[in-house]
């Protein structure tokens, strides 16, 4: 059994939480006491049937206002897969929370209200999916019950969204007409939508192939910490512990340590406490090298025949996530996986309008939820790949040294 992480996105009343509630409910992943608590809180608010949306809104303020403020993670399992859902807020002011939820997703479900069609938020969420290169997109056209399950309505939205998908170069886009409220095409195929020939949503999620989402070609390993027990038996033990970011490593591989540019050979590999001949992403591992080299946390070990970029001045896309605006010339800490370096925003080339994807002038401060193209200079060189090529080695965050907050998502270009 494998694992699929997906995120649901849509604007405020598209029925996102209802959809998740429905997925959990119809796949029998909601338990009796949770349902009882739900029925109780539904009674407190309105009379009527059980409000499945209440299953996912965890904070008191969210229940009171009927909106989602932060990402909630939900888990469910079918005989075929384990699923992790990031239920992300739809409001513009919570875009950063959506990016948090989207950063680890293999798939995004974009909800469209059949009565509304493609709206501004649909476009914005699609742009985030495109920026973060989420490998699979499902466009769930919801509330089909409110448009008499009309195929024309569905087709029009499909045509409208195809244009957006084409412009954003979204890959693997699928369309499913649903009614989250009534459960049409969620777990079972709906008789009311007999003109739809595809799979219901859950079956689609169970079958979509995610095995190609991990890059096994470009081998990258970053040192998290050095393990040196210094006990009597393990006196000379020195292993570099970290996660295989991408690719495969084998005993005997010729490797280069970056940014030092020193060559060596893998003399021993360990994972899970035992010695192995090979390790692959995303396994944790301990690498031993044949030569004594000065290596510390954040240094990268790659295969010598496939090198990443090594630079201290780089082009990036920044998604700004802090209330305090970004000011060009400001210094921030940049954290690239386990590597922490000082950096300065040298120049902002342009702002990206997240509703139209148009480039705009870079005048003025960069505010919360804005996306800009920028040049960053770092105090020491970074060892990276471009995000589109290798997202796990192409992403970083900026940290405000004074507040310690994470203030930006960084995508290397």
């Amino acid at each position, binding site marked *: 059994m494998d694992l699929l992480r997906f995120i649901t996105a849509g604007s405020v009343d598209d029925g996102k939480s209802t959809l998740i509630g429905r997925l959990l409910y119809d796949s029998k992943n909601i338990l009796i006491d*949770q349902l009882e608590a739900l029925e109780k809180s539904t009674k407190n608010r309105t009379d009527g049937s059980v409000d499945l949306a209440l299953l996912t809104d*965890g904070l008191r303020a969210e229940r009171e206002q009927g909106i989602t403020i932060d990402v909630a993670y939900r888990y469910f399992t079918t005989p075929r*897969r384990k699923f992790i859902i990031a239920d992300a807020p739809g409001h513009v002011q919570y875009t950063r929370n959506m990016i948090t939820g989207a950063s680890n997703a293999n798939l995004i479900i974009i909800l469209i209200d059949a009565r509304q069609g493609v709206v501004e938020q649909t476009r914005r969420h699609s742009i985030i999916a495109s920026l973060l290169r989420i490998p699979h997109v499902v466009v769930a056209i919801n509330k089909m019950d409110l448009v008499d399950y009309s195929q024309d309505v569905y087709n029009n939205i499909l045509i409208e969204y195809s244009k957006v998908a084409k412009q954003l170069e979204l890959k693997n886009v699928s369309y499913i007409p649903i009614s989250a409220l009534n459960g049409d095409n969620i777990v079972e195929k709906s008789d009311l939508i007999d003109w739809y020939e595809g799979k219901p949503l859950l079956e689609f999620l169970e079958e979509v192939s995610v095995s190609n989402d991990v890059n096994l070609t470009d081998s990258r390993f970053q040192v*998290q*910490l050095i393990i040196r027990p210094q006990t009597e038996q393990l006196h000379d033990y020195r292993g570099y512990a970290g996660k295989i970011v991408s690719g495969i490593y084998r005993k005997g591989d010729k490797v280069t340590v970056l940014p030092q540019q020193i060559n060596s050979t893998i003399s021993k590999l360990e994972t899970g406490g035992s010695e192995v001949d090979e390790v692959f992403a995303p*396994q944790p591992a301990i690498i031993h090298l044949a030569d004594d080299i000065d290596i510390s946390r954040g240094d990268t070990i790659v295969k010598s025949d496939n090198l990443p970029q090594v630079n201290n001045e780089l082009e990036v896309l920044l998604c700004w996530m802090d209330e305090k605006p970004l000011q060009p010339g400001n210094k921030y800490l940049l*954290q690239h996986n386990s590597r922490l370096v000082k950096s300065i925003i040298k120049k902002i080339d342009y702002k990206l309008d997240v509703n139209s994807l148009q480039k705009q002038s870079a005048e003025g401060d960069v505010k919360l939820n804005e996306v800009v193209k920028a040049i960053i200079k770092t105090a020491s060189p970074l060892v990276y790949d471009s995000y589109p090529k290798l997202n796990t080695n192409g992403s970083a*965050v900026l940290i405000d040294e004074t507040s310690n907050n994470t203030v930006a998502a960084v995508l290397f270009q």
Partner: protein
Amino acid sequence: MSLYQLNYLEQLEAESIHIFREVAAQFERPALLFSGGKDSITLVHLARKAFSPGAIPFPLVHIDTGHNFPEALQFRDWLTKEVGAELVVRKVEDTILERKLTEPKGKFPSRNWLQTYTLLDTIEEFKFDCCIGGARRDEEKARAKERIFSVRDEFGQWDPKLQRPELWSIYNGRIHKGENVRVFPISNWTELDIWNYIRKEKIDLPSIYFAHEREVIEHEGQLVALSEYVQPAQDDIVIKKSVRYRTVGDMTCTAAVESNAATLDEVINEIISTRISERGETRIDDKVTEAAMEDRKKNGYF
């Protein structure tokens, strides 16, 4: 499945080990909060794997409410010896005396809320900058919203509206003096994942997780074991039943489940077929209000 693909348990394990190593590298004085339950036992196992062949580079800290199952305490002492870890125990009892706190009253006097005081005192005493905990997001609504690295202010408080964005697998553990980070390496595991992992890795558990005979009383549909902390009232009917525990908390606020499951396979089969959630079935303290956990977390609770 391709040769180079991890199954879901291996993926979860990989994520948790990565988190443990980040903690060891980013913090000066981390600690692992150990309750004696299956989740913290799993944490210890993962920590061992993350740093092997080295030792676990931080102490196990037990905030002892004084209402523990004796089996859980014995197991705690055995496990810490087994893994060669340092064990720090601080007692809620002492905090109550020192700070003249009021003991909770009632038939099931839970010291759950008072635990927070002892925890915060212990953090201050040892200057812990990071506490690793075994909370899972599937347990409860408020936990479903918490980050893996969760920053707490100097009062240990969680502010759900001011959480740091947490992207990819990049964890920002930078804090100001006096602040503290709670780290939850098994955030993405479910109850069933834990049990399946325990079976796969052959992890030892305290005996109370398996069916055994016990004298219990029934309270609002839940079975509560008699002990020196829980005495029957006059109208209570004391019955002897075969039970097991699905979670291990205090004897005063953990309910037992009627069961004959004596082996791991049998326990897992029962959990797969149950229609009641873990906390719902076994915790007497979560039922009070819908936002009980959110309130406790905001106040510095684990």
